[in-house]
């Protein structure tokens, strides 16, 4: 199915999907770090590959990202993306290791790295289970894979399947943030493969319009 021909109703549905997922994720993040979390209105963007990198601040922006591959009925890729300082601040808060930095000698901070991975796992797990309940589609996420590197290098991984069928990607982007004390902002990128969209619209009773 061509991404470019989505109807307004279909776009609304995708926004709602992002809404439901991120609402649940914000709640679980809030419990984890004991802060009130807010959620922005999700946006559904149909972007070419270069534009996609710009959503995160350009291809060279260094980010901490967790990738989950979803198999089964709804093949897609989910990223939970944190800016570097915020990922570091979160890890410091959870582990009490005050001088933790992601780029310096990562080998010596195994516990901090696993704390970050586990946090990503819990938060993204909530995102996906809400999605699964809402759509009644069974989602099987992979274990989380963490990478700290340039946005361009990280985000193209999610494009590999999509790029064989399209020159555009559809991204359901929702961010959750906390304004109390220190600013924390995380992005969820849900990137469904084209065939998954058909499945999703069918599951929600919105037949795909030719």
């Amino acid at each position, binding site marked *: 199915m061509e991404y470019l021909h989505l109807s307004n109703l279909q776009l609304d549905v995708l926004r709602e999907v992002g809404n439901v997922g991120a609402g649940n994720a914000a709640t679980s993040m809030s419990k984890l770090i004991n802060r009130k979390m807010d959620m922005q209105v999700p946006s559904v963007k149909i972007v070419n*590959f*270069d534009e996609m*990198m710009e959503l995160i601040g*350009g*291809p*060279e922006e*260094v980010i901490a990202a967790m*990738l989950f*591959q979803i198999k089964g009925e709804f093949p897609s890729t989910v990223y939970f993306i944190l800016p570097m300082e915020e990922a570091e601040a979160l890890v410091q808060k959870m582990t009490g290791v005050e001088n933790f930095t992601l*780029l*310096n000698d990562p080998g010596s901070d195994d516990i901090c790295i696993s704390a970050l991975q586990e946090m990503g796992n819990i938060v993204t797990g909530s995102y996906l289970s809400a999605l699964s309940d809402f759509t009644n589609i069974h989602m099987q996420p*992979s274990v989380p*894979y*963490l*990478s*700290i*590197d*340039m*946005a*361009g*290098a*990280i985000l*193209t*991984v999610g*494009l*590999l*399947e999509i*790029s*064989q*069928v*399209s*020159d555009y990607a559809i991204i359901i982007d929702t961010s959750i943030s906390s304004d109390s004390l220190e600013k924390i902002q995380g992005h969820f990128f849900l990137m469904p493969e084209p065939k998954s969209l058909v499945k999703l619209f069918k599951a929600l009773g919105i037949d795909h319009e030719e």
Partner: protein
Amino acid sequence: MKNETKIVKVGIADLNIVRSPDMIRTSGLGSCVGIVIYDASKNIAGLAHILLPESRLTKQSHFNKHKYADTAIPILIDKLLAGGARKFALKAKLAGGAQMFQIASPLETMRIGSRNIEAVKAQLNESRIPIIASDVGGNAGRTIEFNPATGQLKVRKVNQDIIYI
């Protein structure tokens, strides 16, 4: 303003050529491969940023030929020749082809970095263009910048020293 150096940026699944004093760069290469082909004495260079190895993988009826190693490289060579480069003098430098996530998966797409490198090497070999230097593989993203005046390729990785190849 004649001598002002411009840096031409190449996006994902794109290519372009420059002449000195201009330089050419592409940012955030992960599993993608950046291929620089140049004619040193003519001060002309081209850069392609390919995403996938072979165009036969496509499921599109019309596809972007700059996306695949096997279709992008011949286009880049043609552009260079049209711009005054000489076929026998062309040389190549490569960077990219990393594996960004250590995913243990039987899926072919997960080792796309090394497949991209193989496809680029095969295509350059077919076009009889020698590879002078490369910085490929590993698991770090790269930003690269080529200066046709010096023939040097600058490779930058996060939290590592810049290298010139």
